[in-house]
């Protein structure tokens, strides 16, 4: 318990909690105390000594950052002794620091420079000893470390071990020879992520007080010449906040924002993945395919052609010959317009986007069991969770900042259960790692529930009050004894029992899952199994517990919220609900179809069979992202007319008749909704390249040309229209979300947003529903011809189909080639060598990949990332989940051959 104490700083009195430090007390009084190594998020070490102050009665000067206040303490921060001591410290630092401010990129933001100026350090008066630290580590793709400029404050060491939890940075040697050493990533030995090796997150670089750790860049800029524009990261669903640092209309750096979702942390893509914005491959002019070749055209010509084709197709084949793919990478406003274009402009509900391929089963599975298909809790609630069950999510690579937060929490004592076919980074610190066979999640969940029920660890009160249908579930799970579940999953019975007890006995247990659960031909059932598990233990509707699907892309939550789905209008309002449809008909001034549209895989089938004639794709790349690439290519070829709107000429755009150049996230305004349902702003930082236009501008013009009202002056106008028609967003506006975003549902303008769902029970459904589910297993299993199980996933260094990350030099260089992970024994069996290229084939196609031998994967199972064109999705099985049509990306049978 903290008590109030009264202290005196520079004769000013302040009453504060006794668990604060002198530094924090001084800051409350706006008294500036200089620091190098201090950071609010770190344990204070007092190692740089710069914050020394005089405390009455103390023998020596005290470090303000690490000294707690005491009642009656008298502190002076500006006495002669203090000032001279600080000057002395600076002089000692300067003695080992090269005099290169003239050409140092840090100049202007360098604390050593600023304080030296403030404390009158004379640059010439100091004896410069022979510096023993004189190496420059250039080996990382993204940053350099210059030991000569390092002041050994140790901030980077602490950030790497306490915040990023990678511990790749340390002090080497001792005395005058002490220096920072960074253990760099290298893939010569095993897996992509090596523990305790640099993951290039850049968090040390972003916090170095001097110019020792600097991002690699070719841009020349001075820190006083730049503007900083706060925006949201365009990569994964965490929704990190950062500033784009801009000089002369060009983004030259990214700088994290403290507070907010990510609290100043970023991953390698966030810190360094911005360079695609200015890549020369950016589309700058509309393209029209003439005689098989793309020819640059004017907007007028391209738009005329598109409208002409729309009208022709509509007249000839009716509205159901149309389909549109919206984009989880575009803003909410643009997704809203895209579904408006398809619904009001084309007259069909054939609109979908790639959420179909990642979390369609979540949306279907959670909406029917709990009421809403989204993360129940907030990212910040990770800090209060006692036990994590991370299943089917390689969190540290796919959602790096959430991964880091889970690691921080586990380090502080929370328990961790990891269920994954690979020994992922989190498994290394798990209390139990269940290395299950791909596709056996249901058997595992049933086994866990069997133990939980039989040992009486379930939450009787919660179940009685909040749920229906327990009896049916019990009927099924009684068959799944730990022995049986262990056999199906290929893990030990003891581990299942241990995991069940850990999960069920925790006060606040939370499930975190991703595509290991969803991407199966029975994906919806896998999701429902997770819901069963959470409901049985009462771990829903409370802070820091819940069931948390981690959404993959920056705005995949938003694209779903905006109704870029074939069955729902914005806010998950059913298209066949007459009252809802009428509301939209009134607002948009057209009549709307009540018929549920086709899902993405069915659209592709229909295109392949020429039932769909016209497709409009915004910011998606199905040729790489969808299963069975050959099938997709055939479908796109069979279309009468294909429009692709993107920032690069993607593999999909190659098939288009018209390609429209769009704006990147840095060139437009709007909002993204991250995985925790937080609606956050993106802001225009630079102007658009060439003749490209924002997606919303393109769509507005098209809507207008089709005779619909679309007089939007800016993105905010669209947001207003959307919010007025979408109850869960109704209380949001640009002013309210300006600072830190807000979480839906937010039905009214005085509603504070919703931190976690189901606080007041399952009001949408009345009661949550237990669903009895049998283990089904994948549709394609290994046999004598295709003896290996292929599972797919992501790597830290790439995003989705690499459209952006492939245009960032460092990311491309770090993971340049498609790879396949195999266990040492499997490698031996097929005589595979590390780093050699081999051919991997399935019944549908084949792909070339570089062998990576690693002990993180089971024998008989192989792993490939899905980012590469002509990679994993040449092989994957397009078998669909009956309920939500998600394809079975996670399991198929393959064989390997030498090239």
């Amino acid at each position, binding site marked *: 318990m903290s008590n109030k104490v009264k202290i005196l700083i520079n004769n000013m009195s302040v009453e504060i909690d006794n668990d604060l430090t002198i530094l924090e007390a001084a800051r409350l009084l706006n008294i500036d105390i200089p620091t190098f190594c201090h950071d609010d998020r770190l344990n204070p070490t007092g190692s740089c000594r710069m914050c020394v102050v005089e405390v009455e009665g103390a023998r020596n000067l005290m470090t303000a950052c690490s000294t707690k206040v005491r009642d009656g303490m008298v502190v002076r921060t500006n006495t002669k002794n203090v000032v001279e001591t600080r000057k002395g410290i600076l002089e000692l630092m300067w003695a080992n620091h090269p005099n290169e401010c003239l050409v140092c990129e840090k100049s202007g933001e360098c604390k050593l420079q600023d304080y030296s100026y403030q404390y009158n350090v004379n640059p010439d008066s100091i004896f410069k000893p022979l510096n023993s630290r004189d190496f420059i580590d250039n080996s990382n793709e993204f940053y350099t470390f210059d030991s000569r400029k390092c002041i050994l404050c140790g901030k980077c*060491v602490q950030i*790497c*071990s306490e915040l990023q939890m990678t*511990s*790749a*940075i*340390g*002090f*080497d*040697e*001792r005395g005058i020879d002490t220096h920072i*050493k*960074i*253990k760099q990533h290298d893939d010569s*030995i095993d897996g992509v992520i090596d*523990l*305790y*090796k640099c993951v290039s997150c850049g968090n040390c670089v972003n916090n170095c007080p001097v110019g020792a750790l600097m991002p690699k860049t070719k841009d020349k800029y001075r820190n006083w010449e730049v503007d900083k524009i706060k925006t949201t990261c365009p990569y994964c669903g965490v929704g990190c906040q950062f500033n784009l640092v801009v000089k002369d209309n060009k983004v030259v750096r990214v700088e994290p924002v403290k507070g907010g979702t990510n609290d100043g942390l970023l991953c390698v893509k966030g810190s360094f993945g911005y360079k695609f914005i200015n890549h020369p491959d950016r589309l700058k002019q509309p393209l029209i395919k003439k005689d098989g070749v793309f020819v640059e055209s004017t907007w007028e010509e391209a738009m005329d052609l598109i409208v002409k084709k729309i009208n022709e197709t509509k007249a000839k084949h009716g509205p159901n010959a149309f389909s549109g793919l919206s984009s989880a990478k575009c803003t909410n406003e643009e997704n809203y317009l895209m579904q408006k274009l398809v619904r009001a402009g084309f007259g069909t509900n054939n609109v979908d986007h790639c959420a179909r391929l990642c979390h369609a089963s979540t949306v279907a599975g959670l909406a029917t069991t709990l009421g809403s298909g989204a993360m129940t809790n907030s990212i910040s609630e990770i800090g209060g969770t006692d036990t994590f069950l991370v299943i089917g999510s390689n969190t540290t690579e796919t959602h790096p900042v959430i991964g880091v937060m889970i690691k921080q929490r586990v380090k502080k004592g929370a328990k961790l259960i990891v269920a994954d076919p690979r020994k992922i980074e989190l498994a*290394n610190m798990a209390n139990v790692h269940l290395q299950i066979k791909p596709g056996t999640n249901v058997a595992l969940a049933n086994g866990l529930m069997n133990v939980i029920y039989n040992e009486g660890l379930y939450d009787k009160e919660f179940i009685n009050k909040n749920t229906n249908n327990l009896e049916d579930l019990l009927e099924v799970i009684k068959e799944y004894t730990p022995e049986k579940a262990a056999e199906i999953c290929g893990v030990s019975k003891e581990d299942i029992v241990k995991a069940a007890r850990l999960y069920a006995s925790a006060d606040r247990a939370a499930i975190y899952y991703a595509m290991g659960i969803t991407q199966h031909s029975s994906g919806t059932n896998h999701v429902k199994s997770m819901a069963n598990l959470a409901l049985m233990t009462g771990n829903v509707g409370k802070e820091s517990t819940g069931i948390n699907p981690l959404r993959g892309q920056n705005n995949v939550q938003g694209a779903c919220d905006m109704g870029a789905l074939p069955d729902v209008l914005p806010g998950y309002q059913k298209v066949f609900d007459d009252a809802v449809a009428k509301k939209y008909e009134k607002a948009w001034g057209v009549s709307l179809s009540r018929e549920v549209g086709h899902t993405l895989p069915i659209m592709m089938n229909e295109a392949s069979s020429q039932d769909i004639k016209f497709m409009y794709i915004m910011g998606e790349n199905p040729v790489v992202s969808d299963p069975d690439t050959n099938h997709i290519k055939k479908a796109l070829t069979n279309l009468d007319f294909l429009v692709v709107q993107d920032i690069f000429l993607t593999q999909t755009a190659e098939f288009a008749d018209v390609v429209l150049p769009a704006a990147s996230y840095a060139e437009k305004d709007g909002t993204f909704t991250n995985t925790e349902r937080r609606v956050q702003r993106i802001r225009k930082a630079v102007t658009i390249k060439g003749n490209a236009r924002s997606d919303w501008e393109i769509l507005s013009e098209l809507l207008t040309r089709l005779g619909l009202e679309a007089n939007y002056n800016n993105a905010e106008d669209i947001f207003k229209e959307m919010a007025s028609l979408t109850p869960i967003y109704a209380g949001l506006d640009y002013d309210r979300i300006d600072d830190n975003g807000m979480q839906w549902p937010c039905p009214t303008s005085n509603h504070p947003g919703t931190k976690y769902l189901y606080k007041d029970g399952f009001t949408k459904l009345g009661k949550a529903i237990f669903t009895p589910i049998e283990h089904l297993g994948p549709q394609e299993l290994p046999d004598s011809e295709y003896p290996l199980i292929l599972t797919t996933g992501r790597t830290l260094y790439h995003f989705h189909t690499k459209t952006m990350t492939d245009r960032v030099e460092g990311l491309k260089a770090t993971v340049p080639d498609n790879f396949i992970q195999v266990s040492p024994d499997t490698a031996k069996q097929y005589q595979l060598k590390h780093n050699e290229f081999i051919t991997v084939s399935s019944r549908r196609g084949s792909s070339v990949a570089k062998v990576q031998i690693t002990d993180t994967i089971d024998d008989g199972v192989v792993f490939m990332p899905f980012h590469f064109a002509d990679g994993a999705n040449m092989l994957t099985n397009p078998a669909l989940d009956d309920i939500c049509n998600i394809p079975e990306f996670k399991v198929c049978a393959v064989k390997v051959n030498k090239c």
Partner: protein
Amino acid sequence: MTVESFEGNNFYEDDRMKEIYTNEKFKVLDECIEKNKLKPGPLMPTLQDAQRIFGCVSEEIQEYISKALNESYSKISGVVSFYTMFSTKPRGKHIVGVCTGTACYVKGSQKLVDKVCEILKTPYGQTTKDGLFTIAPTRCLGDCGKAPVVMIDEDQYGHVTVDQIEKILKKYK
């Protein structure tokens, strides 16, 4: 003789590395690790074991220990480079340490260092070609009353003069 003249003189490292990384040795290390894991703070004893078994704690061995103990490489490297009792390169059969602590230095230990380097034809901090001696940088040995002090393996020699050095070294040849 200057240190610079020996720079890049890794003649002997490569040949001996093959002898160093034998499976038997790693087996012995594994046994030590299993035992050490039961103690609080298993890193230090494991590094001492590794130094004893391999004669060095090279980067490769550090990585091996990092995996086995689930301890960060940067911390291991920090410990190894901090203590002079560990070396990252294989050391000779005998370790010659001329104390360069304050008292010994005042009593002229630098001359002893120079003499040792001259006799063994090896720069300070390195190992003789035949693998017999390593001239280990050595800080205060805590026996300042006998300064300057020379230590060879476990044997300590006090009040050593430049003339005596050759005789002392001969005992170990």
